[in-house]
């Protein structure tokens, strides 16, 4: 089983709405990363949040980390069609970056 897992396989919202993708992980971590992968492209990191941080922002993106419940969330406000992608959380374990299964987010016009 994955060390980090997104909680939903797919989400769909209308453009302009806000959306949150959730992730849970199973081991002690020093940091958690959120990546976005658009169709046919390689992933790109959105946010890296360290274990001593509770929240981190990057433009319309906001990530939270709750080490007590071993969970993280990525919120996107004012969604745009170009936010359509698969969103992965990822954590390091024994030197390897382990990705969750991903949440496919579709933004409808």
């Amino acid at each position: 089983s994955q060390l980090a897992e997104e909680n939903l396989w797919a989400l769909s919202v209308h453009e302009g709405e806000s959306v949150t993708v959730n992730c849970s992980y199973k081991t002690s971590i020093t940091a958690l990363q959120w990546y976005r992968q658009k169709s046919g492209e390689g992933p790109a990191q959105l946010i890296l949040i360290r274990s001593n941080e509770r929240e981190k922002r990057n433009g319309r993106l906001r990530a939270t980390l709750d080490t007590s419940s071993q969970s993280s969330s990525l919120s996107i406000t004012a969604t745009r069609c170009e936010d359509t992608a698969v969103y992965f959380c990822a954590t390091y374990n024994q030197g390897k970056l382990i990705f969750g299964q991903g949440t496919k987010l579709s933004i409808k016009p």
Partner: protein
Amino acid sequence: AQTIHQWPVAEIKAVGSPLSLGCTIKGKSSPNLYWYWQATGGTLQQLFYSITVGQVESVVQLNLSASRPKDDQFILSTEKLLLSHSGFYLCAWSPWGQDTQYFGPGTRLLVL
């Protein structure tokens, strides 16, 4: 600025044939390099990593091998393709000591 280039963009190969995929990073010296495999609709699975020229560590055994002949080049290969090798191959790099990985555009492989 650093750039990462993968070649070829896509390949269709026969079962049992050899394969060589390449990755080049420009603008960064001595990066850590990684190969990942992704099934269609699946997650990313790390295959190999390298922290220096000539040294490659295997993470998952998939009848593939990797080499780092130059500081900026990472090669993934096999002498005999299997149907299960089909998928999306991604090369990534990270600066030494940093957690963020930067991914290339990928190579899509179909084995028939």
